[in-house]
């Protein structure tokens, strides 16, 4: 209990500090104005989401290898948290694009790849709802998760190459590309804060899944009598 509280407080501290820094510490960006500050939130969320999906992949591999339910719990928790952060990326993208370019969406290669990745992990979660038996659900979704994660770099590259042949306005410059030192520091701090948030959400979600799994087992045992 104490550990959870401490993690919560530390995360809160980091996130608040990051938010403060992105509003007050970092200088105003020259061309885009105040809306650019969303970049720290947007890009950091993208990294946190990606890390979460990597953790999901790791959980999937371990479940297929060891068949212990906790790896399945890790997998689904990481997928959901990753999906949450990915959704933030997809929402903040248009929020940023609209004042700057006057359009809500361009098929910018980063956003498009993120969208496809979002679809892949939504499918992962949907698959899980369609399989009743827990061990089967864990195994089959883990296998799909492995395939899905292997696809992610392929999606990124194919969309990127495609976009170099059919250029469109780019929503954001690359992180760290032409970032002034203060900006860079705040950016990495935001990444840290988002990761702390991700870990917090992941551990809470994991706890929930563990409890759910135990209740489910008890219910099945009871029904079988």
């Amino acid at each position: 209990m104490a550990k959870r509280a401490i993690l919560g407080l530390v995360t809160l501290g980091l996130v608040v500090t990051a938010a403060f820094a992105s509003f007050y510490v970092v200088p105003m960006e020259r061309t885009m104005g105040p809306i650019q500050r969303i970049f720290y939130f947007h890009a950091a969320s993208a990294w946190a989401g990606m890390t979460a999906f990597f953790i999901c992949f790791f959980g999937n591999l371990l479940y297929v290898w060891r068949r212990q339910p906790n790896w399945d719990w890790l997998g689904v928790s990481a997928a959901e948290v990753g999906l949450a952060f990915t959704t933030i990326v997809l929402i903040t993208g248009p929020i940023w694009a609209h004042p700057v370019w006057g359009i809500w969406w361009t098929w910018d290669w980063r956003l498009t790849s993120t969208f496809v990745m979002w679809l892949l992990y939504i499918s992962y979660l949907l698959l899980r709802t369609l399989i009743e038996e827990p061990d089967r659900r864990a195994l089959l979704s883990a296998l799909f998760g492995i395939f899905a994660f292997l696809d992610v770099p392929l999606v990124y590259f194919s969309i990127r190459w495609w976009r170099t042949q059919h250029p469109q306005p780019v929503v954001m410059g690359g992180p760290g590309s032409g970032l002034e030192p203060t900006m860079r520091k705040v950016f990495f701090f935001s990444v840290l804060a988002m990761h702390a948030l991700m870990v917090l959400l992941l551990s809470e979600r994991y706890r929930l899944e563990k409890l759910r799994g135990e209740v489910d087992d008890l219910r099945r045992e009871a029904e079988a009598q």
Partner: protein
Amino acid sequence: MTPAALSPTGIRFENIDKRYGGLYALRRVSLEISAGECVAFAGRNGSGKTTLLRIAARLARPSSGKVSFLNGGEESGGPLPPAGFVAHATMVYDELTAEENLLLFARLQGIAQPAARAEALLREVGLEDRRNSLVRTFSRGMRQRVAIARALLNEPAVLLFDEPTTGLDPQGARWFAETLRGLRDSSRTILMSLHGESEVSTLATRAIRMEAGAVVADTRTGANLRSILAFANA
């Protein structure tokens, strides 16, 4: 049904657990089946008979515990030839003919002279004049004959039957009993799950009752064979 050279094979189940989520289909099942025994498993649906047979067939893996095949009392090393498995599902293709089905499985299993073997088996199960008919056109009894032929392709020393007489008319059941007698008398080890007393159950040399995934009675440890089978559906 006389095989060329059959090495009598026993089966040992050691502390078999099979879990589906929190549910135990099999709970610490330990059994030793001697070579040549013809064992009848009785029990309600859900008692674990089918699961145990599928584990013996190596279609399912136990959650914990081990199943091994014994040659002369010792565990046989090396790759195991598959046991012959006949379930309620026919496990043959409706869209292929009887002969095509047997040829397919014979080739997959790497059996020498698959065509000759398929023909011989079709003759033994009495289907040689229907060899070129699609299995889809067969009656339940005839489908079961194809299933048995398929199970016998590689001359297995162990045979597993999961509720083999379900859906058979009296003539079909009689044919099966005759066939089973021949298989038993050729020193194969047979495990079969049954629902109750019948012509088939009289061929058993041993009976085991299962309930809720555990063995509750065994003629080897003194239980009465008829009582095991008579209360099968209680």
